[in-house]
């Protein structure tokens, strides 16, 4: 009971920070718009396969930009303060929840912009939206934890890409494989692969909760 209250308060604090310092939110928004606009300038109507590939790569970069700051923005003093008042598990879960929410929002926006600018080859829209939200969630979980590592290493976002790309490749391949099926009417989405992605997400959450206490004590 106590811990849910803590998590709720921590999420509220992140949300409040986001509302007060709106530049970061609008920064990511602008990043999405600018990237998609550049793509629109270079290729007008890509084939479904290219569309899919571009979409997921853009998702990956949006995620790095949106999630990277979650731990990097916390100053040393503020971390020390949290250290003294909350449980590391609650802190991590709150961050995971907040970043998931942020990334779901960004994923949704990027689908809209993508189909607006680059044409809409998607045949099964509801499935695709569901898949993108699942994908955004998976990406945000992995990169939230990597952001914690990068922040502890006192590094910039570049090291997150180095640490994260090899780890995220398998999940991204699963997602792309699934997403390729929404461009035709024929084949359905494989439930087993979907389950696999969800299991991987659960694995990431568990690892993050188990390992974060080690990261956080100084």
């Amino acid at each position: 009971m106590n811990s849910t209250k803590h998590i709720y308060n921590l999420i509220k604090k992140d949300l409040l920070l986001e509302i007060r310092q709106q530049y970061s939110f609008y920064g990511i928004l602008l990043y999405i718009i600018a990237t998609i606009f550049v793509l629109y300038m270079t290729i007008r109507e890509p084939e479904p396969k290219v569309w899919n590939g571009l979409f997921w790569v853009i998702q990956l970069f949006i995620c790095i930009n949106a999630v990277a700051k979650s731990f990097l923005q916390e100053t040393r003093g503020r971390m020390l303060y949290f250290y003294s008042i909350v449980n590391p598990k609650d802190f991590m879960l709150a961050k995971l929840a907040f970043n998931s929410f942020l990334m779901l929002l960004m994923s949704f926006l990027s689908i809209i912009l993508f189909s607006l600018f680059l044409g809409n080859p998607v045949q099964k829209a509801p499935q695709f939206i569901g898949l993108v939200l699942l994908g955004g969630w998976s990406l945000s979980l992995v990169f939230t934890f990597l952001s914690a590592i990068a922040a502890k290493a006192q590094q910039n976002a570049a090291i997150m890409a180095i640490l994260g790309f090899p780890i995220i490749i398998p999940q991204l391949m699963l997602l792309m494989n699934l997403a390729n099926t929404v461009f035709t009417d024929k084949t359905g989405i494989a439930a087993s692969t979907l389950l696999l992605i969800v299991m991987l997400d659960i694995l990431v959450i568990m690892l993050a909760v188990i390992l974060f206490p080690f990261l956080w004590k100084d």
Partner: protein
Amino acid sequence: MFLSLIFANTFEDRCYFAVIFPMTGHKNYMYKSWWKILAVVLLVYTFTAGILIEVPRNPQLQETIRNLFFHVCMWFGMMILFIISVVHAIKYLRTGKHIHDIASRQYAGVGILFGLLGYITGAIWMSYTWIDSNKSFYDSFDSIAREPKLIGAAIALLVYAAYLVLRDSITDMDKKARISAVYNIFAFAMLFPSIWIIPRLLPSLHPGGSEGNPALNFKDASMNMRLVFYPAIAGWTLIGVWIATLKIRFKLLNE
């Protein structure tokens, strides 16, 4: 020459033992010589028997099938060394003993070496079996690099290369050990399911996938080959462990 190396080692062991024993608290596997002798014996056997035994005549593979004793063993060795590395990372987080951090780092380093050797032996093998003889190696590379097994191996090597980068980017020793152990465990836990998943997702030329090409399914073909293959795995892995322990002991003396 190998024998003299072993005896030199045991002699060194006696000397170092007095220095290191108080630090580690017990005489552990690193300072024993029987498995080092075993490694040499197994490898001598691999090199002689591996070249001499009767192998099945496969029209596509011919004599290159003997590369099984070298190429496949490199990957086995890499996996086992990475597993040892992650075990030491977990031990470090549990106990906070510095020796586990050193061990974790050195096993990962030797694992990467084995991975690179696996790539080299694989490249030699595939240049005789997979490559379209009308095209150059360079032209056919992009179709070969798509191999699921190669992707899995590339991910493994990239992850551990990132591990080394992360380690070098932190100056504080305790922090370096802690953060890299955390990354090691996280990356390992994400890596190994994916190594088992990816080959089942994609079509492959490489044997040992979900439904290996029957023409290439040579592992079950010959009892003869298994007699060399299993000892070869053990031999290569032991030599990897030996290299790693030498590096660990060198580090311990350095500090």
